[in-house]
């Protein structure tokens, strides 16, 4: 327990110095932590933006995350992946906000293969030959809309792995699910995304 009165401090003079050093050291660690965390804000926001449905929600959630992170900085282990640590806080806060699991849509047959989107786009383009041109048939808005239409259990893994560049292992820790679940959701989620893209781009019926 820290002592507050002058008399007590006089009795323990050598350790007063140590205590002061320790406090100064902690302050330095904390400043370093805060600066590192703030340096990751762009990347945290980029992921948060698509874990949530809107810019406003993402901004709120990122603020809440940083406020929590700054208060509990001591539970971060230096040398570990801070970006994953921040995202773990963020996804937990997002769950606390009442997010429920969502079922995948029943479109098994239509998402049954991975070449689906290419084939649909190719059918709907004249004399199409160049893969990049196929991709360009999709506008930026099409893609943002399609991604937000993916049920969030699936969207979360796509956002973390394909947009946030997290490893399967990090994604599993952030979402607190087994790595096998990350892989199967990623696989299924990418197909659902492509299905959504086909719908937006060429008016494919669901």
């Amino acid at each position: 327990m820290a002592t507050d009165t002058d008399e007590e401090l006089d009795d323990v003079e050598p350790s007063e110095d140590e205590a002061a050093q320790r406090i100064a050291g902690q302050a330095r660690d904390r400043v370093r932590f805060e600066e590192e965390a703030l340096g990751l804000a762009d990347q945290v926001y980029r992921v948060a933006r698509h874990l949530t449905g809107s810019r406003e929600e993402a901004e709120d959630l990122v603020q809440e995350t940083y406020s929590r992170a700054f208060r509990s900085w001591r539970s971060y282990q230096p040398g570990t992946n801070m970006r994953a640590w921040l995202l773990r806080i963020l996804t937990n806060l997002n769950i606390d906000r009442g997010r429920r699991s969502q079922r995948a849509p029943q479109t098994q047959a239509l998402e049954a293969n991975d070449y689906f989107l290419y084939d649909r786009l190719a059918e709907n383009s004249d004399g199409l030959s160049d893969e990049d041109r196929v991709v360009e048939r999709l506008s930026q808005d099409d893609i943002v809309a399609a991604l937000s239409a993916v049920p969030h259990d699936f969207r979360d893994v796509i956002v973390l792995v394909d947009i946030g560049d997290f490893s399967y292992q990090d994604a599993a820790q952030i979402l607190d699910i087994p790595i096998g679940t990350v892989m199967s959701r990623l696989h299924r989620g990418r197909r659902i995304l492509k299905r959504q893209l086909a719908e937006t781009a060429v008016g494919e019926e669901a």
Partner: protein
Amino acid sequence: MKDPCAHCEEMMQPYLDRILTEEEMVEAEAHLSECEYCRRRYRFEESLRVYVRQAVTEQMPAELRLKLASLRIPLD
């Protein structure tokens, strides 16, 4: 014997995620080198991933950066 293109299609996601074994990798590449049908679709998938990532990447609003900095706990 499986249809080689169907098999190749199954390997596409793990191939692009770089989680195939050495052996599977060689197998996929051997098929891709002689099959334009699959090659086009792999290339499409690869550019799609890049394109999706670019399309959905949004800059963090400048005010948010300031708000976050203001959440720092002041030194005593």
